[in-house]
């Protein structure tokens, strides 16, 4: 059976000054349409590399990625990326930041008025309408990340790629954004691949958690299906045995089977 997004036998080797470095080897993953996937692993294990290959920003040395029947070999708005530190253009307002992508994607398909309406719709989706004429430096970190998400959603991607989207935020803001992402995922049914290093976040949001072994030559260690019913509520789940069990399994993988390589030295 063929998946909506299929990563097959992907490996990548970087040419560094101290010789070739093999970051990934034999990564295989099939993602169904509408699925929410988390990639988790210790830092330096190549999670971001996988995401960059999916985005088309890196080229795999061997193997390949197929999305909706087409091979991925260059970046495209089809696979929009939410970057860890928002990556908004500081000289544009919130609205203009979203507009930049929309104009590019819909230039032949939507009229000016339709585009404006579509941008407003997406800003409303992430609850940021009130700040639409502000510049990035005038809004908080959480709001910036909301704009980052709106910018991606507005391009109607086939897959939404998120690179540790909430890593730089405080715990409360992060919880708010996680709720927003769940809400949006439920509403739009977008396929999402998210990188995280937060176990709770992975369990709360994902349909499946992909756990990666440590590099060099990192690959997928285990895949855990999270069958908790949606909509999920963080308060109710906190003591839910299934939630606790799933959390336990991820922790075990990370801290028992695949200890952080730096931890041994320390």
């Amino acid at each position, binding site marked *: 059976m063929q998946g909506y997004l299929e990563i097959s036998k992907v490996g990548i080797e970087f040419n560094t000054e101290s010789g070739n470095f093999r970051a990934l080897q034999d990564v295989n993953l099939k993602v169904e349409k509408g699925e929410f996937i988390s990639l988790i692993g210790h830092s330096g294990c190549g999670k971001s590399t996988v995401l960059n290959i999916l985005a088309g920003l890196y080229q795999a040395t061997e193997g390949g990625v197929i999305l909706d029947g087409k091979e991925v070999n260059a970046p495209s708005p089809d696979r929009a990326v939410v970057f860890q530190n928002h*990556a908004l253009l500081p000289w544009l307002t919130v609205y203009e930041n979203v507009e930049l992508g929309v104009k590019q994607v819909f230039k032949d398909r939507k009229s000016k008025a339709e585009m404006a309406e579509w941008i407003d719709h997406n800003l409303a989706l992430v609850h940021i309408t009130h700040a639409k004429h502000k510049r990035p430096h005038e809004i908080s970190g959480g709001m910036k990340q909301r704009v980052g998400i709106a910018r991606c959603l507005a391009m109607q991607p086939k897959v939404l790629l998120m690179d540790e989207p909430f890593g730089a935020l405080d715990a409360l803001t992060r919880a708010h954004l996680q709720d927003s992402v769940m809400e949006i995922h439920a509403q739009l049914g977008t396929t999402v691949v998210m990188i995280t290093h937060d176990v709770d976040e992975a369990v709360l949001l994902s349909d499946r958690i992909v756990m990666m072994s440590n590099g060099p030559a990192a690959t997928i260690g285990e895949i855990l299906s999270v069958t908790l019913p949606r909509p999920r509520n963080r308060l109710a789940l906190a003591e839910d045995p299934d939630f606790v069990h799933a959390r336990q399994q991820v922790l075990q993988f990370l801290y028992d089977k695949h200890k952080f390589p730096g931890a041994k030295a320390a």
Partner: protein
Amino acid sequence: MRLRTAIASRARSHSGENPEAMKVKDEEKKMHSIISRYAFIKREQTWRFEWSDIPGGVAIAKALRTWSLSIAGILVFLLLWQATANSIDTSLGQFPGPVQVWTQVQNLADEHQRENERRVEFFERQETRNAELLAQDPNAEIRVRPYTGRPTFLDQIQTSLMTVGFGFAIAMLIAIPLGILCGLSETLYSAVNPIIQLFKPVSPLAWLPLVTMVVSALYVSESPMFEKSFITSAITVALCCLWPTVINTTVGVASVDKDLINVSRVICLPTHMHIRKIVLPSAIPLIFTGMRLSLATGWMVLIAAEMLAQNPGLGKFIWDEFQNGSSDSLGRIMVAVLVIGFIGLILDKLMLALQRRVSWDKQTVLR
């Protein structure tokens, strides 16, 4: 001591959670401690004056302080100058002090006025003469001659400004696009960099003879729009002030945030949009740094070029005065020196103002 506590308690009562407001309060606190040294405060007295009591007082106090320090600095300089000048005797008389220089400023202004009057008279005479000729014989051939008086100091300033403006414009038209290309393409940068490094340290005086000969050979036209000497100076200026802008633009373009470049790649922005929306706004501060360095270089180069090539302008004015060798010469040269400095300063301020207008980041402190 009492003042300190008063300030501290006030600052505390004012401070909210807003970090911006906290910053402002911090600034105010700093100002207080500075002002307290100048304000009329005595511990025993019940009244005391504080700048913060009047609206905008802190800003006024800050401005007063900066201005008074600047004026004090200038005064000390003038005193030292006068004292030193009195003890230097040259073959052209005593070295001019501020007083002599001021006299020459007035002289130069008077000369300009006299010359202007003479020019007006010249054209009036010419017109009446021509009118008379036409009255006698309607078919008479009349001649309109240009006025050929000596250019005054102000004329020379004007020529210099035009030349530097023209040379700078040529340089920027080449430097900014070249810098952008070098910043975008590492290949091109590697190819061009050695040439930049080679020509960057070359003195304008080395270029001048070559430029003069080339302009003489190539710039031949029946009715030239510009004088040859003007073109020669301008090109020499351009050749020398090209490099800071090329280098800074390259660095600015090459150091655009990698995330922003990735955003552009994901959105699939076409190259011209990528340059306009991502690269240029990022690089604007460094482009302006380069342009300011270039303009300053250009202005310095111009004076030297005019002096050596006998092109009209401030440089020629200085050279002529030097050759003239009257007892006023040194004073007049000193006037030119001060004017050159002042114009350089104004040019830089103009660039700064332009940068403020163009830059998206209105918050950075520009120096």
